[in-house]
């Protein structure tokens, strides 16, 4: 292998600088009853993107505030329509809810396209070319419809074989077990318990599918990203995350249980009062620690794994070197910064987190970044693409 230059991503954002932008954004958003929030969002993103650079060339965010405002207004109108119609015609409300759930993959797909297209580096735009039907597969069919369908089939088969349910009444099966849930106890258990357990067991697999979907369909100019991810790695990371969380919760709980046994023995009211306030504090600390530690663990492991197995144009490598404890410290200290400043430190917490997340990424063979060309048709945003942005649905991918 020839000697390739590896460079770190640099983040130049400053808490004090971002604070001024943030507070003015907040002020104007309130003053204009939320209309300015579209401009606020664009300015925030432009600041954070513009502060992130590779070898002196920064990223850039291009979305126009008007487009974002338009998307938000449409989303707002839909929401009003949903709540008014849902109140007047409850049945129609359910129909609209199903419609909303069915459109989530479309919304995710739209927002992935929008955000990629609105991002550029060195004068060249990113783009996302994933197919809509894949989005439906990964965001609706595999995580939700598949577990439901499997457990429905198993539950129905059980009913037919064990309980002698007539096969030809298949169309009434769901309403029957809903109406006579006492009689069809095991059928209901299989249906509900089955779909929930299949859903949970498939979480790592679905995470892998979503990450692969994103990192194999995003392009930088004419150059394509490709990502080779193993599902076994996701299962490993998820199980370890679960164990970390369990350990953080279990250990102090055991201590608390021991104290509880002790306090049951001596019936002193004063000691009990102190003890219970201590227990309450302990509970709070454990809850925070487990949330922050498991999030830090999961984020760093997944991000390191996914980035390190992703490359651009088959010659530019990406590497991420997040450390669980450092990330945990940032989460924890950010939380206390927020508490002690009544939220005023919010910009500082964002800068600290973004800086650490950005500066642990490095790019190998960075010279090759000069060989890309924007694809012309990408520049024009398709109609309605900004709606995806407005709904702010989690895509399960943090970039």
């Amino acid at each position: 292998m020839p000697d390739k230059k590896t460079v770190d991503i640099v983040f130049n954002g400053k808490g004090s600088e971002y604070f001024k932008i943030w507070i003015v954004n907040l002020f104007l958003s309130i003053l204009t009853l939320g209309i300015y929030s579209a401009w606020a969002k664009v300015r925030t993103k432009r600041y954070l993107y513009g502060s992130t650079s590779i070898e002196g060339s920064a990223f850039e965010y291009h979305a126009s505030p008007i487009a974002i405002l338009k998307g938000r207004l449409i989303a707002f109108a839909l929401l009003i329509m949903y709540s008014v119609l849902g109140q007047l015609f409850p049945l129609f409300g359910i129909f609209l809810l199903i419609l909303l759930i069915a459109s989530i993959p479309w919304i995710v797909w739209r927002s992935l396209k929008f955000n990629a297209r609105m991002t550029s580096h060195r004068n060249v735009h990113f783009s996302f070319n994933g197919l809509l039907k894949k989005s439906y597969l990964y965001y609706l069919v595999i995580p939700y419809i598949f577990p439901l369908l499997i457990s429905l089939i198993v539950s129905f088969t059980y009913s037919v074989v064990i309980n002698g349910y007539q096969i030809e009444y298949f169309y009434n099966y769901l309403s029957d077990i809903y109406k006579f849930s006492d009689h069809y106890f095991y059928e209901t258990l299989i249906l509900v318990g089955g779909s929930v357990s299949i859903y949970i067991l498939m979480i790592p697999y679905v995470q892998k599918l979503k990450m692969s979907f994103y990192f194999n369909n995003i392009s930088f100019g004419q150059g394509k990203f490709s990502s080779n991810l193993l599902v076994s790695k996701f299962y490993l990371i998820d199980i370890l995350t679960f164990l970390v969380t369990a350990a953080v919760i279990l250990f102090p709980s055991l201590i608390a249980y021991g104290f509880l046994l002790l306090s049951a023995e001596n019936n002193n009211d004063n000691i009990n009062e102190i003890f219970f306030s201590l227990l309450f504090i302990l509970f709070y600390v454990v809850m925070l620690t487990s949330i922050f530690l498991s999030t830090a663990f999961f984020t760093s492991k997944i991000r390191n794994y996914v980035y390190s197995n992703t490359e651009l144009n088959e010659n530019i490598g990406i590497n991420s070197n997040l450390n669980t404890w450092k990330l945990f410290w940032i989460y924890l200290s950010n939380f206390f910064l927020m508490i002690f400043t009544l939220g005023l430190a919010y910009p500082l917490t964002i800068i600290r987190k973004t800086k650490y997340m950005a500066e642990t990424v490095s790019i190998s063979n960075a010279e090759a970044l000069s060989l890309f060309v924007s694809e012309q048709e990408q520049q024009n945003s398709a109609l309605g693409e900004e709606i995806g942005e407005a709904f702010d649905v989690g895509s399960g991918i943090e970039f």
Partner: protein
Amino acid sequence: MTLEGYFYEPGKSHRSLARFNVDGIKYDLIVSEESIKAGVISDLSFSERIGNTPRKVIFQDGSVFETQNNNQIDKVVSKSGNENLISRLLQVIENKWRWAITSIAFLILLGYFIISVILPWAGRELAYIVPNKVNETISSGAMGLLDEQWFDKSELSDDKKNEIQESFSDLINALPNNEFNYKLNFRSMNGAANAFSLPDGQIIITDELVRLSENPKQINAILLHEIGHTHNRHVMQQMIRSSMISVAISMATSDLSALEDLIVVLPVFLIKSGYSQDAENEADKYMLDQMVRLQINPIHFANIMQKITQDESNSGSNVLKYFASHPEPSMRVKKALKISNEFFGEI
């Protein structure tokens, strides 16, 4: 003036070190000692300044010059005449600490104004619009919960109850425009002397309070105070205000989710204790007005108040104290005595 930076051809990621010279209204761009572009600056467009992030000069053919030198570029932009006034204004206020501090001060003032003026006003207006059906639904739910959690059956004798009920219905009949169907309920609450009113006109009085009272007029004084709460829709006002705060905060801080719970709980708590004082004073005012109108001497209120105060200082830690959220009792006694003197003369 000369600016250092990178030059990009349209849509290409290849960059070359470049110098951008501006002389008056003319510019030229130099890449590897060779002038590749020249013209007048009014033909150029410029990206907006945000913090100290890199700026772009965009040429008419779509090629780009990128530089970190924000201050110099600002001068070029203002000279070019292509300056967007709004973005210039934003750039100024985003850069100055005094504007940031002004924003903070304004936000605090606005928050104070909303909490102390807008919300009470809206709560008052809306509380009178709420249909009675809602009041009834809430009250029956609350009554069920109270019976489950706090109350036991009254242990008063039927004679005593009938006596109080009779004087209560006389009182109700004497009140002007009854929009509510007032009803009196007897309960016991672990020996605590207390009285409650629900938004639909149900009033609860505890055995201990009946026992402390020396005559039905004292009980009527307390009941008039409770009717004052219902009459002025205090519970509904408080509920509307709390829910409006929660909704407003979750809307405004949609990206502050970590703090959300804390922020939501805090003002609700603060307002609750601030609001109750006003509500109690308003209910007292209603009571005293009606007492004067019905020729009941407010001295009875002063007397029962003193009884309750003594009782609470004797019994120590009761579960719910009548005065927990009430204004200083001696102030209320004084007010009642003053009115008693004015209208009924010295006793």
